[in-house]
């Protein structure tokens, strides 16, 4: 029996960047977001991302972070990207440490927004621990596919009237005629790739373009769509 005591499971968890807790705008903005979908946030687990927040070194600071999130009905369960000293302090506050930690080589950091840019909205993107989803059959009109916390790969056409959504990237190796919404959880770095663009609507992290706004010269070609400086940008592949 002892072998069955510990079982593995994969969860989707929201990540909050620790440096944002210092931002005075964080509190009201999070409150707003929670108010919009209270059920989604109720008792939802949160991991604190310590990348770029080396100043978090005391147990009390982690307890404070936990209390702030608790006020918004969220439950802080652990930390990520932590230095060894931070891991110890967090453990003292009863928080788990999730990989990757700062001692491991981490990916290159995304380009920081210009200093005069408006403060970025709180990033509550889901981590990509979930498995990406592969769809090999045509996505028919009226069908809705949502992939939580991961990418969606479609190797067939997506019909007009169909809607595909993912918290991560969307790849369509076929004609994209329906709606595609990447970064549905707010990840502005998500992208949409398709081998033929004839979409009704494309959206990344809430920024969208409808069919009429798609440049005619990009229609029918293989493109990728990314969010650059808050604008949806279509690049021909």
């Amino acid at each position, binding site marked *: 029996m002892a072998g069955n005591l510990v079982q593995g499971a994969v969860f989707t968890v929201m990540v909050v960047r620790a440096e944002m807790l210092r931002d005075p705008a964080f509190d009201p903005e999070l409150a707003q977001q929670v108010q919009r979908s209270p059920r989604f946030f109720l008792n939802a687990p949160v991991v604190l991302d310590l990348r770029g927040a080396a100043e978090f070194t005391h147990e009390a600071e982690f307890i404070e972070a936990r209390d702030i999130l608790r006020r918004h009905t969220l439950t802080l369960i652990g930390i990520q990207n932590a230095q060894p000293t931070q891991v110890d302090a967090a453990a003292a506050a009863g928080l788990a440490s999730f990989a990757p930690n700062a001692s491991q080589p981490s990916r290159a950091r995304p380009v920081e927004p210009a200093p005069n840019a408006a403060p970025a909205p709180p990033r509550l993107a889901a981590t990509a621990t979930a498995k990406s989803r592969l769809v090999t059959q045509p*996505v028919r*009109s*009226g069908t809705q596919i949502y992939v939580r916390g991961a990418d969606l790969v479609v190797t067939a*056409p997506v019909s007009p009237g169909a809607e595909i959504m993912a918290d991560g990237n969307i790849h369509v190796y076929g004609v994209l*005629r329906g709606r595609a919404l990447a970064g549905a959880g707010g990840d502005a770095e998500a992208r949409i790739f398709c081998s033929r663009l004839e979409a009704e609507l494309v959206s990344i992290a809430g920024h969208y373009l409808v069919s009429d706004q798609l440049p005619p010269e990009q229609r029918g070609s293989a493109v990728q769509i990314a969010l650059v400086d808050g604008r949806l940008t279509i690049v021909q592949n």
Partner: protein
Amino acid sequence: MAKVIVLTSGKGGVGKTTSAAAIASGLALRGNRTVVIDFDVGLRNLDLIMGCERRVVFDFINVINGDAKLNQALIKDKRNDNLYIFPTSQTRDKDALKRDGVERVLNELKESFDYIVCDSPAGIEHGAITALYFADSAIITTNPEVSSVRDSDRIIGILASKSRRAEHNMEPVDVHLLLTRYSLERVKKGEMLSVEDVKEILSIPLLGVIPESESVLRASNTGIPVVFDEESPAGRAYVDAVARFLGEQREMRFVQPERRSFFRALLGRA
């Protein structure tokens, strides 16, 4: 093993009943024992198209409810001994289509027929879902225009998710495209989608292309399914479609290659 075929489309007025009558008659002409059932409860039309409206006593709903026996409700076709018509009720509505009752009737029909052709009502509500639920094969009746194509796409999605075969993880319903009311002239003018356009969007195999033809209207009004009219292009197109359904290879007629497709025209690309 008897096969249940549903004629469905999502959209109304595309020619489901005409096609159901023609395909059922075509299967019977090829020597198969065939019954065609009207699932359009409350909007009964199949009996008119089949020219047996004056012989209806009991109907599908009576049999589902156990008020009549199957052989009391089935009407034998005057032209072909292999063909039977199973009319529906004009006074009831789609709620009368109880799934277990329909299943019982279909199972009973399977004992004495090779093909059971179901003429579905339009829409994606209870009536249409019940008509397609037990299908082994589906013939998606589509007109060469965008709204019909989109509705067909929706119905193909429903066949793949809500049919009995889908719910029980059986081999999926075998889906065919029947393009009706096709006018080569209008395709050439860019007023209609071409066969290639429709095939590309729906990505299912093409069973047949039925040309727009006056003989279809004449057939409906006289109650003689168009396959019995050997002179008419539409009749011959249905005969071909039935042959393809039975596994024969036949060249597509009435579809010459077109130069400028509707979609390209729409997108402004020559």
